[in-house]
C-alpha cells in the first residue's frame, strides 16, 4: 500500500527554544489508514502537523504527502488535505451556515456544491438544526463538530485532526468518532492526535508514539498492548514508553 505521508528525519527548533521540538522524527502513514499520533505534552505532535500543512518550515529532513514535498507544494497540498486545528478556527460572529458558505467560497466551490456538502455534513454531525445559530452561541461539543465540518467541505483525501475531541461531552465524542470511522471507510486517510488513549485504541488502525521530538514506537493498538509487558490497555503502553514524569 502506498504511503499517504512520509516523514523522514524531521528536525525543528523554534527561535529561542532550548530543546528541539522535533529531533529526527520519522513516521510513515499508509493511504486509507487511521493513524494516531500520540505523545505527551511537548512531544512534537502539533509541530509535526504544522509542518505537514505548511504552517511551519522544518530545519532539516523532509515530509511528503501523497509523494509531494510539504515545503515545496504547500498550496497544492492544501487542496487535498483537511486540517482540523486544536482551536475552534471559525468566525464566532457568523452562523455555522455563513461560516461554511464563506469557507466553501474560499476553496473555490460553487454555491450548489457548498449547499449540498454543508447540508450533508451538518446533518451527519447533528448540527443541521443549528445551522443558523452563531458559532459563539454553540456549546463546546457543537463548536468541535462545526470545526470538523469546515475542514471537510472541500472533500480532502487526507484529514489531519489535532485533538478533535478535547473538552467535549461523551455524546459529542461518540458522534465525532463514529463520523471519522465512516469517513475512513470512504477510503480517506486520517491522522489524529489525542491524549485520550481509549479513544485512540477505539478508532486507530495504527498508533505512533513520539516523545521529545523523536519516534518511540508504532503498531496496531492491540498488537502494541500484546507485545508490551504488563500492559492491558493502550494507556499502559503509552506510560511504559513515555514514563510517569509530568511534562510541562
Amino acid at each position, binding site marked *: 500500500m502506498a504511503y499517504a505521508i512520509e516523514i523522514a528525519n524531521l528536525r525543528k527548533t523554534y527561535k529561542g527554544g532550548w530543546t528541539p521540538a522535533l529531533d529526527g522524527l520519522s513516521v510513515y502513514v499508509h493511504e486509507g489508514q487511521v493513524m494516531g499520533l500520540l505523545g505527551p505534552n511537548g512531544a512534537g505532535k502539533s509541530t509535526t502537523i504544522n509542518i505537514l500543512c505548511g504552517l511551519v518550515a522544518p530545519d532539516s529532513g523532509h515530509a511528503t504527502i501523497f509523494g509531494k514535498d510539504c515545503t515545496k507544494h*504547500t498550496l497544492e497540498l492544501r487542496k487535498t488535505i483537511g486540517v482540523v*486545528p486544536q*482551536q475552534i478556527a471559525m468566525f464566532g460572529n457568523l452562523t455555522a451556515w455563513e461560516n461554511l458558505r464563506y469557507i466553501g467560497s*474560499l476553496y473555490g466551490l460553487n454555491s450548489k456544491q457548498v449547499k449540498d456538502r454543508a447540508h450533508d455534513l451538518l446533518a451527519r454531525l447533528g448540527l443541521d438544526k443549528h445551522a443558523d445559530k452563531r458559532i459563539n452561541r454553540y456549546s463546546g461539543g457543537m463548536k468541535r463538530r462545526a470545526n470538523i465540518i469546515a475542514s471537510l467541505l472541500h472533500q480532502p483525501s487526507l484529514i489531519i485532526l489535532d485533538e478533535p475531541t478535547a473538552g467535549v461531552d461523551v455524546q459529542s465524542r461518540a458522534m465525532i468518532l463514529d463520523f471519522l470511522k465512516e469517513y475512513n471507510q470512504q477510503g480517506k486517510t486520517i491522522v489524529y492526535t489525542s491524549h485520550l488513549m481509549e479513544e485512540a485504541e477505539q478508532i486507530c488502525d495504527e498508533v505512533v508514539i513520539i516523545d521529545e521530538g523523536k519516534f518511540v514506537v508504532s503498531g496496531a493498538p492491540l498488537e502494541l498492548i500484546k507485545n508490551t509487558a504488563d500492559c492491558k490497555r493502550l494507556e499502559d503502553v503509552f506510560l511504559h514508553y513515555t514514563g510517569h514524569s509530568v511534562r510541562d
Partner: protein
Amino acid sequence: MNKILATIQKEWILLRRDVAGAMLLFLMPAVLIVVMAMVQDAPFKDYQELRFDLLIANNDHGRLGDEIKNGLKQSQNFHVVDSIDGKPVTEGQLQALLKAGKYRVGIVIPKGATAEVVNAANLVANRLSEKLGMGKLPARELRDSMYVRMYFDPVSKPTFRMSISFALDKYITYSCSNLLVGRLSKLGMSQADMAIADSTGSDDFKRIFQGIGIKEEALNDKGSMKLFINSVQHNVPAWAIFGMYFIVIPIAGNMLREREERSSLRVQLIPYAHNFEALGKIFFYTLICTAQFAVMCGIGLWLLPQMGLPALYLGQHPMAIVPIAICIALSATAFGYLVGVVFKTATQATPFGAISVVIMSAMGGIWVPVDLLPGIMQKLANVSPLHWGLDAINHIILRNGNIGNVLPHLAMLIVFSTILFLISLYVNRSRIHSVQ
C-alpha cells in the same frame, strides 16, 4: 483592600508583559503633544508675525511700482517673488500659480499707477491753488478702476485673507502717500500747505490723497469664487477625510479578533485564500469609507443649509470628487489593514491607530492650514496622505479644478496604498512562518 491591590498588581503584570502596548501608551501621546504644540503654535501667533511668499506682477514700471515692491521687500511679513526663471511675473502667470495652489497671495500693480498718483498730486495742488487763487496744473478726475489688485489662492481662509489684506493695504497706502508727498514737495508745497489742503476734511480729498488703493479680486473666471469661502466649504471635506481615516479602528479590531478566535488560521489553511481575503477586506472597507465620505458631503449639501449654514459647493467638476474619495478611502483602508497586521493586541493597535490619525491629520492641514505651520511641519505635511486628499478635494471645490488637476494626488494616494498593502502581506507572511 487586598483584592484591590491584587487587581492592581495583576494589571501591572499584564501591562508590563505587553511592552509594545505600554510603550505606545506613553510614546503616542508624547508624539501627539509635540506635533499639536507645533501645529497650534501658529494660530496663537498674530499673522503679522508670520512670513509669506508674495507674488508681484508689476505692470506699472514707474516709481510707484518700484516703491511698493521695495517697501514690501523690506517688510518682515512678505517674501516678495517678482520674477520666475529670471523673467518678471506676468498677471496671467500670477493667476495660474495661485489657482494651482503654488502660492497663497499675489498682487498686480496696474499699468499707469504712477501716473495716477502724479495726477492725484496735481489734484491736491489744484485744490490748494483754488484756495490761494493760483493757476491750475493739468489734471483729471481719479479713476475708480485704478487700484492694486490682490488675489488669493481660493483655499485661503477668510481670517488669513483679512490679515494679509490689512498688512498689504498698510504698505501700499504708505508707498502711495510717500510718492504723493514727494511729488507735492517737488511742486513747491510745504507740509503746512498740505495741512491747509487737507483741512477741508472731505472724503473725496482723503481718497485723492491716498493715491490708489488695494482691492481683492476673485481668481476664478466666473468671479463667483468668493461665495464659496466659508466654514462649510473648508470643514466638510477636511473632517470627512479625518473621519474616513478612523476606519483604522474597526479594521484593526476586526483583524485582531479574527486572529484571537483563530478564524484567520482557517483562512491560512486554504490555498491562496489569504490574498483573496486581504483584497476582499480592502475592497469592502474602501466602499464603506467612500460611502462615509458621500454621507458627509450629503450633510454639507442638505443638512447644514437647514441649520442656517451655506450649502457645500462641489465645484464645476463634481464628478471628479468620486475618484478622489475612492483613493482617500483606499489609503485609509490600507493604513488600517497594516495596523491590523503589524500589531499583536488591541492595547497596541487602538491607541496607535487613533493617535496616528490625529497626528497625520494635524500634519496634513486638517486642523490648521498648512501655510500657517512652521517650516518643518510644512515639509512634513507633504508626507501626510490626508494632506494629499484634502488638497485634491480643495482643487475641485475651492479652485474649480478638474480631474486633470488632481491626477498627481490620486497617483500618490494609490502608490501609498499599494506600498502599505504590500508591506502588510509581507509582514503577515513572515509572521506565520509560511513555507509557500
